[in-house]
């Protein structure tokens, strides 16, 4: 077949120049390695950070009681808004757009003891929905507290993973007794280890949680809690839920529903979106850096094509003398350019894949580096790389091959 004949011949021509071309292929391989690794690290980092964001919980809004800044119905401004169980029940009943909601009592510096080990940690009193909202998932063999624990005001405790390690080391904690502020509690669950990006009261892995009713009965020094956490049914409709919360609580606590200072809100959903956008920006940036590296290699391809075409001027003339059209000449050099780009790209991709495979097997202990994640090569990265290589091979080969096709046959046959 004509194509096989010509490809075989082009292959022989390339083989003769293999040393010269090897450097260019190496440059393309290096450029490919750069872009693939940068994109792979970007992908890994994005996934790790999004995973870490979920460590706080998904689709969350956290609300603290604030202070009124507007007078309302004869009442002065500057009044504190104090949140309690009643508010949680009211909001749950009145706002169908809320999926889950839990009050959160906080007690800082709570003394917690097991045997000879004694620590001082943040303890929260919450309801069972809190665990689901905040991704406090129990390790196998344990559980978060349930309705019955709440109704019976049981002395049960759920430990953060790091807190468990501090109190129990490698030993099993579920079923064991600990002492919280001189009162015995039973450990019913330990949090599965998680990465957490975004926190409002310290890392969850350091905390202990008890049923909200137990907290109110045994430890609460006040009848109100600092904040509550909720998940809207439809995250896109969260602003209307927020307005409803202001309206309902405004009626109960006698503040103007438009008074933004009455409550302090952290929309973690919005933060998550900003983080996703930022990660996309970082990925694009990394891709551009890698692309520029590959582009430099592409310049090398164009350079080597110009050199080889100059050296093969007479051969081009011979082919034209025996009937090759300018398009035949152009196709040959375009194919050579693409071949260099794709061979180099294949080498680069293979080395990248091998490196990523090795890196994925390395366990990262350092907490800071954990957010870097592990590099991941997706099919999208592969496709992007192949497209860029094709573009580079085409553009780098286009101008030299056009120049070759315009060679005057008579002059080229005289070329020494």
């Amino acid at each position: 077949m004509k194509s096989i004949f010509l490809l075989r011949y082009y292959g022989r021509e390339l083989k003769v120049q293999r040393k010269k071309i090897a450097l260019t292929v190496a440059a393309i391989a290096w450029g490919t390695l750069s872009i693939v690794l940068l994109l792979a690290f970007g992908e890994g980092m994005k996934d790790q950070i999004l995973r870490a964001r979920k460590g706080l919980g998904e689709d969350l809004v956290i609300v603290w009681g604030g202070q009124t800044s507007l007078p309302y119905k004869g009442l002065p401004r500057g009044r504190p808004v104090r949140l309690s169980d009643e508010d949680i029940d009211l909001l749950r009943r009145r706002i169908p757009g809320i999926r889950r909601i839990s009050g959160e009592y906080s007690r800082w510096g709570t003394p917690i003891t097991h045997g000879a080990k004694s620590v001082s940690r943040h303890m929260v009193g919450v309801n069972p929905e809190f665990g689901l909202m905040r991704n406090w998932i129990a390790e196998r063999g344990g559980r978060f507290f349930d309705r019955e624990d709440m109704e019976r005001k049981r002395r049960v405790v759920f430990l953060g993973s790091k807190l468990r390690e501090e109190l129990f080391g490698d030993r099993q904690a579920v079923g064991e007794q600990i002492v919280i502020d001189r009162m015995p509690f039973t450990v019913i669950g330990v949090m599965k280890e998680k990465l957490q990006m975004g926190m409002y009261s310290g890392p969850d892995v350091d905390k202990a949680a008890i049923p909200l009713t137990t907290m109110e009965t045994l430890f609460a020094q006040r009848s109100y809690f600092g904040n509550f956490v909720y998940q809207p049914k439809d995250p896109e409709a969260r602003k209307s839920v927020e307005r409803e919360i202001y309206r309902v609580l405004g009626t109960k606590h006698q503040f103007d529903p438009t008074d933004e200072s009455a409550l302090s809100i952290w929309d973690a959903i919005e933060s998550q979106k900003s983080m996703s956008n930022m990660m996309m920006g970082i990925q694009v940036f990394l891709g551009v850096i890698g692309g520029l590296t590959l582009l430099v290699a592409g310049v090398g391809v164009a350079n080597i094509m110009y050199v080889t075409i100059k050296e093969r001027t007479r051969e081009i003339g011979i082919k034209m003398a025996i009937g090759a059209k300018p398009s035949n000449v152009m196709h040959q050099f375009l194919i050579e350019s693409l071949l260099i780009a794709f061979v180099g790209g294949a080498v680069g991709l293979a080395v990248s894949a091998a490196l990523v495979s090795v890196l994925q097997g390395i366990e990262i202990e350092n907490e800071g580096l954990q957010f870097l994640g592990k590099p991941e090569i997706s099919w999208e990265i592969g496709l992007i790389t192949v497209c860029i290589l094709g573009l580079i091979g085409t553009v780098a080969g286009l101008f030299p091959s056009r120049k070759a096709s315009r060679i005057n046959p008579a002059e080229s046959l005289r070329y020494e």
Partner: protein
Amino acid sequence: MISMTNITKVYDTGKIEVEALRGIDIEFERGDFISIMGPSGSGKSTLMNIMGCLDVPSSGTYVLDGEEVQGLHHNRLAEIRNEKIGFVFQNFNLLPYATARENVEMPMIFRGTTAGERRRRSSELLDLVMLGDRLDHKPGELSGGEMQRVAIARSLANAPAIILADEPTGNLDSGSGREILNLFHNLWKEGRTVIIITHDASIARESKRIVHMMDGRITPDGPVPA
């Protein structure tokens, strides 16, 4: 078959203009065996390049086989070179990384001939030039005379009507040169138009008509040297 009227060729080097051909009028009939003679710089290679559609004239009219050539697109010129003209060069101009057979097949590739037909014809042509046992040798493995025979076989690949040879024996010893000339003779006897550029009178003697050139012009045809 070939008709040139007032053909000129001017090379503009930027600083000066060089008139390589100054108003060439010439006609060749089908089946002619012609030598074009002249000293170095007389314009004979330029004339051959234009005749062979490797270059275009600066002015004048060139009709080849009934087709006006001077204004044609380069793709059509390539087709004419492929189908109607066979070139034989002084320095052979074979493709160095192709075997003897592949060199002969190359013009057929550009014509679109099928693989089977290419193979058959290349074997036939290499047999004709007595290189049937060197099909798979590359030019680096052949002598000068053998390389020129491959070049002749290649020139016949698409059965062109015209063979243009520029100093075909210039780089050969007398024995090999003699063999090559005999081949040209045989091709002429088969009915082809053979045009040889040479400055060697002994070669010109082989042809039926000599065209003399000097300073870009044709001087009156001289008799065939004795």
